[in-house]
């Protein structure tokens, strides 16, 4: 892993926004899976997931979450100096989401705004980059993390059809005099770039007249070339072989024993996979909150969604020693040891 320490930033608040439209997997997957549907739902751990209705995007969800957060925090939009938007489903290739979000939220033009293109490792990367930005500009920063992968998921592909949910989140990072350090670690394996990929639609394979055609692929999946293709076994292999070791080395480096942790906050990838990671780290499952069953896998948004859905009351009053980690497309692993809370947390809200 590559390590980094950042101090002088406070995790001041977090809010999540999900589409009101809840899809029940037993119903939506019935035709694709037939009598295997119950097993398939158990295998992913996703019972329901939230899906955008046409015309709604991750930008809408994230801006709504941010507005709710700012209503509940004593700060004026004009005090915010930056926006970092983590997403791989921006409204447009150009301009980025962050610039439009800054305007929609009423920030002054004296702000720095940029997107970061990251998937499931994205939230922790967002905390790292956002913290560095906030410290450097000496002003509060909004970290927005949101995804609407439902638009690029094939309902006819058994490896992905039940998995992805949409969500948008907002986290407020504020510079502080605190000496507390956030201790990060990163690992990147680009040799496996194609095990979790949207093959067509950008520079390498531009959008063309066949991009919207469903085809049957060698792995048996029926997808359009602009749909997510996931080699589930390769991702699982990467995660179980690398994530526990990375997290252990981060803890060892910082003299933290697993027993000292209050929380293991993992990206909500797949319930079985998360449990395997926790077991290898010898961290009891009651320290690992789960939101996947109700909200699905919303990529970089799953960690803040989980904080908002499972820890809203916990984080209000006191700090919790947390090991937070995301892992996925890249392939990429990010992790941080930090105290979570006390902070403002309005919880999960719905859109519209």
């Amino acid at each position, binding site marked *: 892993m590559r390590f980094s320490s950042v101090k002088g930033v406070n995790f001041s608040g977090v809010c999540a926004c999900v589409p009101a439209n809840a899809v029940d997997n037993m119903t939506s997957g019935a035709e694709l899976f037939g009598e295997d549907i119950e*097993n*398939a739902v*158990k*295998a992913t751990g996703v019972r329901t997931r939230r899906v955008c209705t046409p015309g709604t995007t991750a930008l809408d969800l994230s801006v709504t979450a941010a507005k709710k957060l700012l209503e509940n925090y004593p700060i004026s939009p004009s005090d915010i100096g930056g926006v970092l938007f983590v997403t791989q489903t921006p409204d447009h290739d150009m301009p980025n989401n962050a610039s439009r979000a800054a305007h929609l939220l009423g920030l002054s033009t004296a702000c720095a705004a940029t997107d970061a293109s990251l998937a499931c490792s994205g939230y922790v990367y967002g905390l790292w980059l956002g913290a560095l930005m906030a410290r450097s500009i000496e002003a509060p920063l909004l970290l927005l993390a949101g995804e609407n992968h439902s638009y690029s998921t094939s309902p006819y592909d058994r490896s992905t059809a039940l998995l992805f949910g949409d969500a948008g989140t907002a986290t407020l990072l504020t510079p502080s005099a605190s000496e507390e350090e956030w201790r990060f670690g990163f690992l990147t394996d680009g040799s496996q770039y194609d095990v979790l990929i949207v093959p067509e639609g950008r520079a390498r394979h531009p959008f063309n007249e066949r991009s919207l055609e469903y085809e049957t692929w060698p792995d048996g999946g029926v997808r359009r070339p602009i749909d997510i293709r996931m080699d*589930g*076994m390769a991702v*699982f*292999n990467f995660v*179980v*072989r690398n994530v526990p070791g990375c997290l252990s080395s981060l803890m060892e480096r910082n003299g933290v024993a697993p027993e000292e942790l209050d929380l293991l906050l993992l990206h909500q990838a*797949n319930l*079985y*996979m998360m*449990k*395997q990671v926790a*077991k290898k780290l010898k961290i009891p499952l009651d320290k690992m909150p789960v939101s996947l069953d109700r909200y699905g896998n919303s990529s970089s948004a799953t960690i803040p969604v989980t904080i908002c859905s499972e820890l809203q009351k916990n984080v209000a009053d006191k700090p919790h020693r947390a090991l937070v980690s995301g892992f996925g497309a890249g392939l990429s692993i990010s992790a941080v040891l930090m105290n979570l809370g006390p902070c403002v947390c309005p919880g999960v809200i719905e859109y519209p």
Partner: protein
Amino acid sequence: MDKTNAPQFINEIADIIEADPQALSLESDFRESADFWSSLVGFALLTFLEDQYGQVLSVDEFIECKTVGDLYARAHGKGE
């Protein structure tokens, strides 16, 4: 074949397939006994045999395994 560490092996298999260890024996069909069966669970079993016992099974060899006892035999380097 020495079966002295069979109880420990059964516990480890129970953990991987998310089954009740009390309800599992060497005679149990591990696919049936799993809380749910998926390719990830199968993969986790293969990884376990490789990492803990140094035994790398081919797909066909794994398909031939039906019971926890079959896995135990493979773990100790015994086919069939």
